[in-house]
C-alpha cells in the first residue's frame, strides 16, 4: 500500500530517465516493486516449494501433481503408507531422481538446474545409516566435511562440536561399523549437519531404534530446528510426526490427500472423540446406543465401555440422563482426543473407498 506522501501529486510525473509516465504507470510500477519485495520475502520464508510434481515408472504413476510448501525453520512431516511416493519425492528434492513434470524449488533454486549449489545447502539422512563402516567416527565426519568443501580447521572444529553435541565423543576413535544402531543413527545425522545445512531431510529417522534412543533422537531434531534449520521428515511413526511436526502432508497413491497443522487434521479427519466410562453395574453397549444418539459406537475394553462420540457435549448429557433413568452411577469417565493415527487410518480407509469407486 502506498503512503499518501509517497504519491506524486501531478497526473504526469517525470521519471529518473526523464521520460514522462502517468500516475497509473507509477502505481503499477510501485505495485510491481512491492510484489517483487514480497516475493523475495516469501522466498526467504519458504524452504521447499513443490508445484505439480509428477513422476511415473512405466505405467505406474508414483507422483501425480503433488504440490506443497515447507516453511522455513519448521518440522514438516511427509506421511503416507508404503508405496505412496514419499521416497520418490525425497529423491527428486535431493537431486537423486529426475522428475517428469512440475516445479521444485529448494531455497529458491531448482535442484535439477543447480544441483551442486542446492546440495551444498541441504543435508540428507537416508533410511539406512550409511556412513563408512571402516572409518572411525571422527574421520567419517571430517570426510563428509571435505566433500562439502569445509576448510581443515572448520572440519576439525565441527567434528569436535558435533561429536560432543551428539554424545559420541567417547566413540570418536571407534570405527562406525562397531557402533550400536542408535549411535550409528546419531552419527549419520551428525554427518548430515557437518556443513550446517539450511534444510535437513530425514527419512525414517527412528526406525529400528529402542525407545530411549528414539526419544533422544526426537529431542535432537527439536534442537536442530531450534538452531534455525528446517526439517523435512518422512516417517511411518505417527506418534513421532505428531510430536515433532508443525505441519504435515499425507500422500496416498502419489496424490496429496490431506495437509495442514497436526491439530487441524486431527480435528478434521480424526473423527469422533472417545469416551471411556466405567459404570457402577454391568451395562451393555447396546443399552447405551439405544438411548444415546450422540454415541456412534460402543465396545467393552478392560472392564469399561469405550464410546465414540460424534458430539461430546450431547454424548455426556445423554449418558448422564441414561444413568439417572437407570439409577446407575458413573464411577470413572475418560476422554481421549483422536490421534494422528486415527486421522491417518481414516484417510487410508477413505482412499481405499475412493479407489474402489474409481475402479470398474
Amino acid at each position: 500500500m502506498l503512503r499518501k506522501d509517497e504519491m506524486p501529486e501531478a497526473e504526469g510525473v517525470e521519471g529518473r530517465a526523464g521520460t514522462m509516465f502517468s500516475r497509473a504507470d507509477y502505481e503499477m510500477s510501485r505495485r510491481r516493486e512491492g510484489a517483487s519485495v514480497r516475493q523475495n520475502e516469501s522466498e526467504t520464508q519458504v524452504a521447499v516449494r513443490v508445484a505439480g510434481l509428477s513422476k511415473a515408472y512405466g505405467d505406474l504413476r508414483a507422483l501425480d501433481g503433488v504440490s506443497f510448501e515447507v516453511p522455513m525453520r519448521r518440522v514438516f512431516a511427509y506421511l503416507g503408507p508404503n508405496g505412496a511416493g514419499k521416497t520418490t519425492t525425497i529423491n527428486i528434492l535431493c537431486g537423486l531422481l529426475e522428475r517428469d513434470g512440475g516445479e521444485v524449488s529448494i531455497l529458491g533454486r531448482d535442484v535439477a538446474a543447480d544441483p551442486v549449489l542446492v546440495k551444498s545447502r541441504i543435508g540428507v539422512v537416508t533410511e539406512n545409516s550409511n556412513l563408512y563402516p571402516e572409518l572411525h567416527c571422527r574421520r567419517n565426519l571430517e570426510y563428509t566435511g571435505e566433500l562439502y568443501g569445509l576448510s581443515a580447521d572448520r572440519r576439525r572444529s565441527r567434528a569436535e562440536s558435533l561429536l560432543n553435541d551428539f554424545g559420541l565423543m567417547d566413540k570418536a576413535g571407534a570405527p562406525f561399523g562397531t557402533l550400536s544402531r542408535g549411535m550409528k543413527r546419531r552419527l549419520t545425522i551428525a554427518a548430515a549437519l557437518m556443513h550446517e545445512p539450511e534444510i535437513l531431510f530425514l527419512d525414517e529417522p527412528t526406525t529400528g531404534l529402542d525407545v530411549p534412543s528414539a526419544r533422544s533422537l526426537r529431542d535432537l531434531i527439536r534442537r536442530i530446528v531450534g538452531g534455525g534449520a528446517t526439517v523435512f521428515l518422512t516417517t511411518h511413526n505417527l506418534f513421532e510426526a505428531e510430536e515433532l511436526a508443525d505441519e504435515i502432508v499425507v500422500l496416498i497413491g502419489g496424490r496429496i490427500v490431506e495437509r495442514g497443522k497436526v491439530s487441524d487434521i486431527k480435528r478434521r479427519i480424526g473423527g469422533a472423540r472417545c469416551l471411556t466410562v466405567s459404570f457402577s453395574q454391568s451395562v451393555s453397549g447396546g443399552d447405551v446406543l439405544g438411548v444415546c444418539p450422540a454415541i456412534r459406537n460402543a465396545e467393552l475394553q478392560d472392564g469399561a465401555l469405550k464410546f465414540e462420540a460424534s458430539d461430546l457435549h450431547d454424548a455426556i448429557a445423554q449418558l448422564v440422563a441414561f444413568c439417572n433413568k437407570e439409577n446407575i452411577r458413573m464411577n470413572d469417565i475418560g476422554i481421549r482426543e483422536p490421534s494422528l493415527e486415527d486421522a491417518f487410518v481414516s484417510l487410508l480407509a477413505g482412499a481405499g473407498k475412493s479407489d474402489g469407486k474409481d475402479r470398474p
Partner: protein
Amino acid sequence: MIQLARALAISRKDVESYYGKPPLVTWGLLFPAVLILAVYIKDRAGYLDVAPGIIAMTLLFGNTSMAAIVITFEKRSGTFERLLLSPLGMGTIILGKALSAAAYGIATSIVLAVGLKACMGLPMARPDVFIAGLLIGSCVFSLLGLIASVMVKEVFEAMTLMNFFRFPLLFLSGVFVPFAQMPGWLKPVAWLSPLTHAGEMIRFGIFGETAFASPWVPVAASLIMFAAVCVLSGLSFQRYARR
C-alpha cells in the same frame, strides 16, 4: 579447483579404506610376480617376452577389479549414495574413484617392475614411456571398471561381466604372444584392444622398441580410448544417478 580438491578427498578416503590394505597390495603383487617367476624358471631369457604383457595384464585386472568392487560395494552399503547426495559434479565422483584405482594399479606395477629389475635384471630403456604406459593404461582400465560397476548390482556380477571381456583380451592383446608375432588376421582385432596399446607402451619403455611404426601410435591410440571411456563413464554414471 574446488571440485578437484573434493575428487582428491574421495581418492584419499578410498586408498585409506580399501587400497592401502596389506592383503590387497600383496595380492596385486604376488599374482603377476608368480606368473613371471613361472616363466623365468622355465626359460631365463624368455620371461622378457611376456614381462611387458604381464605388467599390462596386472594393470588391467588390478584396476578394473578394484574400481568395480569398490563402487559395487559402496552401492550396496549405501555409501555411494552419500556421494550422489553431496555437492559433487558427476565428473568429480568419477575422477575421485578412478584416481584411487589408478594409483593402486600404478603403484603395484611400479613395485613389480622395480622388483623384476632388481632380481631378474629387467631392462628399462625408456622409463618415461614406461610410466606413461602405466598412467594412461591404468586410467583407461579404471574407467572401464567404473562403467562395469554401474551396470550391475553385485560384486560377482561385476566380475562376471568384466571377465567376459578381460580373458579374451589376454589372448588378443599380445600378453603372451607379442603383437609383432601375431597372425595377420588377429592384428586388427588386437588393435582395438586397450590392453594391446598399454602393453606396447610398456614394451617400448622396457626394450626401447615397438611392433608399431612409432611409439606414438600406441600412445595416440591409448589417448583416444581414454577419451572414449571418459565419455562412456560419464554417460553411464549420469544414467545410473538418474535411474
